[in-house]
C-alpha cells in the first residue's frame, strides 16, 4: 500500500517516469507520517482497513478571520452586514507580498519592504544581484481554499473564478520530478501556454540576515535560502499567484500542516469542557498549540480529531490524504436578470470528484462561470445578493473537508500540557482571538495587541466620499 496522490488524481500516469513520481510522493508523505508515530492515538492511514470508522470534517471556505476582524455579526442590520461582507470579500483578494529574513538561527516569513531592504536577492554568477531584488506573493485565503478571478483582457468581464484546494507539496513533487508535465498541466488548467522557466527559480536565492542593534533590526548580510535554489519549483510563481491559481499558496495552506495538526490534535490536553453549551474549539486549538486560532478550519479539524481520540480511537486522515472540496452550493446564483441558473451550466469540476470510489467527496478544483454563450460576465451576477465581482460569495457557499479515519485504540493517552490559551477580543463578533501564555492574564480591552489588523483590508466603501466631478487639479469640473 502506498500513500496516494490527493484525490487519486492520475497526473503521474501521463509521465514517462510515472513509477518514480508515485514513489517520490509516497516517500514524501511517509516522511511526514513517520514523525508522529510516537503519539499514542496516532493512526497510520495505511494501517486502517475497511472496518475503520470514517468522519467527514467540514468547514466553510471563506476565511473566518475577515468576518471576525470586520465584525460582520456585530450589527444585525442587513445592509450594514452586507457592506462588511463585501469588504471582507474584496480584502480576501489582496495578495500579500512577503520575503524571508534570518534572525538568530531561524528564518521568518515577513512582509516584503523595499525601503528597508527586506527583499529576496537572486545570486547571479556567484554574486548577489541587488538590482534584481524581488519578493514573493501569497493569497491570504487561509481556509485551505483559494481562488482566482479570471477576466477577459478586452472586455474586463469576469469569465471564470477558479477555486483550488490542491496541496503545494504535491505540485512540488510533480514539477521537480517532471518539469514538462508541470508545464503541460499549468497550461491546461489556466487555458494558455505557460513558459516552463517561469515555474522554477532561475537562480539561487539569498535573504537578509538581521541582528538587533540598539533595539532596532539591521541587515548585517545575506544568506542562502534553502529550498530556493536554481531549478527548484517556485510554488509562488506568478502563474500560480498574480496570473492564476493552480494550487494553494497561503503559508499555512499546506498538506503537511494538515497532517501535523491532525496528528497533534490526537493528544489528550489539560483542558476541560466547561459546563456551558460550548466546548470551545478555539480554546482547544490554543491549548494544543496547533493551527491558526482565527480560522474556521484548524479549530474544527482539531476538535473533531481530538474528540475521536478522546473517545478511544486511533485517528488520522484517510488515504489519499488531501484537502477536498466537499460541497458547493450555488443555488443562490442569480443572473443579471435575477433568474436562477442550472448548477451544471455555471459550475464545472475540473479535478477530483464528488463521488470517489469509496463514496466520499474529493473535489480538488472547480470553476464558476457564466453559462455557455452568455453575453455577461460574473460581475453582473450574484450569489445570495452578493455580487460575483469577487470569489468570496462562492467561497462562503463552499464546504472544504478532510476525511478522518479511526480504529479502536487501547492503552493510555498521556496528558499533554497546554501551550497557550485563547483570549477573545472584547467586542468582535464573530470572536477574534489571541493566543497568550497559559498562565498570563488576557490583554486589557485597550491593549495595543487588539488594535493591529491581522490582515490587509480593502478600503471601506462607505468612507469613500462621492464628489461632484473630479478635483480641480486633475481635470475639469463636470456639470
Amino acid at each position, binding site marked *: 500500500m502506498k500513500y496516494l496522490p490527493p484525490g487519486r488524481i492520475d497526473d503521474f500516469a501521463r509521465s514517462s517516469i510515472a513509477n518514480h513520481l508515485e514513489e517520490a510522493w509516497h516517500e514524501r508523505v511517509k516522511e511526514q507520517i513517520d514523525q508522529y508515530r510516537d503519539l499514542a492515538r496516532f493512526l497510520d492511514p495505511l494501517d486502517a482497513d475497511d*472496518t*475503520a*470508522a*470514517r*468522519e*467527514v*470534517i*467540514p*468547514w*466553510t471556505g471563506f476565511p*473566518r478571520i475577515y468576518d471576525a476582524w470586520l465584525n460582520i*455579526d*456585530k*450589527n*444585525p*442590520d*442587513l*445592509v450594514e452586514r452586507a457592506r462588511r461582507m463585501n469588504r471582507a470579500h474584496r480584502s480576501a483578494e489582496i495578495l500579500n507580498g512577503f520575503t524571508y529574513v534570518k534572525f538568530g538561527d531561524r528564518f521568518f516569513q515577513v512582509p516584503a519592504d523595499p525601503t528597508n531592504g527586506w527583499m529576496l536577492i537572486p545570486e547571479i554568477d556567484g554574486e548577489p544581484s541587488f538590482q534584481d531584488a524581488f519578493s514573493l506573493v501569497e493569497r491570504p485565503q487561509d481556509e485551505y481554499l483559494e481562488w482566482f478571478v479570471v477576466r477577459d483582457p478586452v472586455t474586463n468581464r469576469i469569465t471564470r473564478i477558479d477555486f483550488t484546494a490542491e496541496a503545494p507539496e504535491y505540485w512540488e513533487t510533480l514539477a521537480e520530478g517532471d518539469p514538462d508535465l508541470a508545464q503541460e498541466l499549468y497550461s491546461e488548467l489556466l487555458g494558455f501556454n505557460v513558459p516552463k522557466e517561469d515555474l522554477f527559480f532561475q537562480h539561487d536565492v539569498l535573504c537578509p540576515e538581521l541582528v538587533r542593534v540598539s533595539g532596532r533590526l539591521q541587515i548585517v548580510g545575506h544568506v542562502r535560502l534553502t529550498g530556493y535554489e536554481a531549478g527548484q519549483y517556485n510554488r509562488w510563481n506568478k502563474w500560480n499567484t498574480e496570473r492564476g491559481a493552480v494550487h494553494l499558496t497561503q503559508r499555512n495552506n499546506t498538506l503537511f500542516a494538515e497532517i501535523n495538526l491532525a496528528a497533534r490534535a490526537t493528544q489528550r490536553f489539560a483542558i476541560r*469542557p*466547561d*459546563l*456551558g*453549551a*460550548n*466546548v*470551545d*474549539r478555539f480554546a482547544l486549538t490554543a491549548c494544543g498549540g496547533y493551527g491558526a486560532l482565527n480560522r*474556521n478550519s484548524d*479549530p*474544527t479539524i482539531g*476538535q*473533531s480529531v481530538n*474528540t*475521536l481520540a478522546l*473517545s478511544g480511537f486511533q485517528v488520522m486522515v484517510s488515504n489519499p490524504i488531501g484537502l477536498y472540496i*466537499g*460541497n458547493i*452550493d450555488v*443555488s*443562490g446564483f442569480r443572473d443579471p436578470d435575477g433568474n*436562477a441558473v442550472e448548477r451544471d451550466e455555471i459550475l464545472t469540476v475540473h479535478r477530483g470528484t464528488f463521488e470517489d470510489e469509496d*463514496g*466520499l*467527496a474529493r473535489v480538488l478544483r472547480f470553476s464558476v462561470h457564466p453559462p455557455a454563450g452568455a453575453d455577461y460576465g460574473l460581475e453582473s451576477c450574484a450569489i*445570495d*445578493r452578493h455580487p460575483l465581482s469577487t470569489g468570496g460569495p462562492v467561497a462562503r457557499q463552499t*464546504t472544504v*473537508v478532510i*476525511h478522518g479515519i479511526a480504529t479502536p485504540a487501547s492503552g493510555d493517552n498521556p496528558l499533554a500540557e497546554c501551550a497557550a490559551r485563547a483570549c477573545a477580543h472584547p467586542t468582535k*463578533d*464573530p*470572536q477574534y482571538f489571541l493566543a497568550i501564555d497559559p498562565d498570563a492574564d488576557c490583554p486589557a480591552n485597550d491593549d495595543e495587541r487588539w488594535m493591529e489588523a491581522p490582515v490587509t483590508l480593502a478600503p471601506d466603501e462607505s468612507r469613500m466620499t462621492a464628489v461632484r466631478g473630479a478635483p480641480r487639479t486633475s481635470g475639469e469640473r463636470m456639470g
Partner: protein
Amino acid sequence: MEPLLDATDIQGHVFPGFGTSHSVVIALQLRAPAEGRAALGHLLPEVTTMADSLHLKGSRREAAVAGLPRPMQQIPLLALSIAATALRAWGHDTSGFDLSFHMGMRADAASLGDPIGQDSIPVDWTFETSEDDRVDVLLIAGHSERVPLEQAVERWLSMLAPHWTPVLIEYGRRRAGDKEFFGFKDGISQPAMRGVTPGGEFVSRRVIAAEDPRSELFAKPGQLLIWPGSFLFGYPCQTSSLTQPGAKMPPPVPWMRNGSYLVFRRLLQNVRVFREAVTKMEQHLMEQGENVPEGWVSAHLVGRWPDGTPLTASPENADPDISDDQNRINNFRFFASLSPTPLAGGGDPPETIPAVPPDPLGFGCPRASHIRQVNPRDGISEIGQEHHSGKLMLRRGIAFGPEEEEMSDADRGLLFLSYQTSIVEQFKFVQVNWANATQRPTGDGADPIIGQNGTLDNERRIQLFSPSRRQQRCPLDGRWVVATGGGYFVVPSIGGLRHLLHVDEESPS
C-alpha cells in the same frame, strides 16, 4: 437583564404559540387591494396577543397541576400574517425586507430542494403556483373544540368576502401523544425565548437551580435560552457567547417592530413510502450481518424513540422515565457530557436529574439523524458550534389529514410553521445547508426525514453506526416528506397591523 417584551403588542402565535387541540390554516388571496385591506382590518380586534396566549397557557398549566381537564376556550385564537405580494399591492416597497420574503417561496423552491418542472413550477405544489392560486395572507387559528373553530372560520370568510378568496383551508389537530404521522412525538425541542413580562416574570419558565451555571443558559435542562432578536424585531440578538445580548435586531421598516417572519410549508407525509424505505434499510443492514431490532432503524433516522426519548440519553430503548419528564426529554448534548443537573424548588438536597453522556461520534444518535441535522447543538458543523444557537426557530407544526390505516397514501402530514427574524439565515439555512446537504453539518448524509435533493426519486445514502457499532453506509431512497406549497409572510405586531391596515391614524412609535 433580559428585555421587557411588549406582550400586548406581539402576536400570541409567535410566542408562546396557541397549543390548542384544534387548528386551522387559511391561505387567502387578495382580490381588491383597498377593500381587502379594510376588510382585513375588521379581523384585527380578534388577533391574539402574546399576553392572551401566555394567560391561556398559564391556566392550562394550572388545570394540569390540579389534575383537571384542559379548560375549554371561550373564543378562538387568531394569528394574521401577510405575504410580500399583498404589501406590494398596498404600495409598500419590499426590497429592503429579507431577500427570501421579498422574492417569495416559489423563487426559493429549487434551493429548498423541491423538484421543479419544465415550466419552473415546483411539480408537487398544489397552491402558490401562479397568479391564480397566489397566497397573500395567512390566517392561523386555534380552539379547544372543532365546531366553534369551524364557525369562526365561516364568520371570518364572510367578513372578508368578496375581497379575499380562500386558496387553502386546512384543519389540523393535536394527535394522540402529539405524534406526527410517522409515529414520533413532535415539537419537543423548542428554543426558550429570553425576556420578561410587565409583571416581571420570565416568559420561559426557568427550572434549574440558580447556583448551577447552566441556569444562565437553559430554561428547562437542555432547552437553550435564546435572545428574542432571533424571533422578534427590536430586541437583542443571539450572539456566540450565548449569555450576552447582541445589538437590537432592527426591523426592516418601523412598523415591523415587535413583528416576525413566518415560514409556512404544507408537508405531505407518505407513511407507506417511509415504512418501505425503513424496511429496505433494515434488510440492507441484515445482509451485512447485523441484528436489527424492530423500530431501531426509524428511531435512528429520527434521533429519538417514538415517545420522544432521545437516543443520546437512552441508546437501547425508549424510556418513559425520560420521555414523560419535561426536564429530561431534551437534556442531552452531542459533544460534551452533562453532569447531574440540580433543579430549583428548594428541596434539600435539591431534586437532581441524572447525568447524560456525550455522543460525539453518533454511536447512539447518528450524526445524520434528523434531530442532529437540523440542530447540531454543541456538535461539529461547518459554521462552528458557537453559531448554532443563532439558527434556531420557533416552530408551530400542526398535523393535518385523515387518521387512516398505516399504509395508505392519504393526503396528510404536517403544516410546518416557523417564526424567525431572518428567513435566509434561519429557516432557509437549516433546510438548504444542513437538511438537504450531504456534507454539512456533518458528512454522514442528508437529513433522512426532511432532506431532499430536487429529484423525484430522492436517491441518497446515509452513514451510521449499526447495532454492532460498525459504520455502515445505507441506501435510503424515496420521498416521504413532500412540500405541496407554502409561503413567506411578515407577522406584524398588533400596532404594526393597525398601521398597515389603516385601522386608525395612529402609527407605531
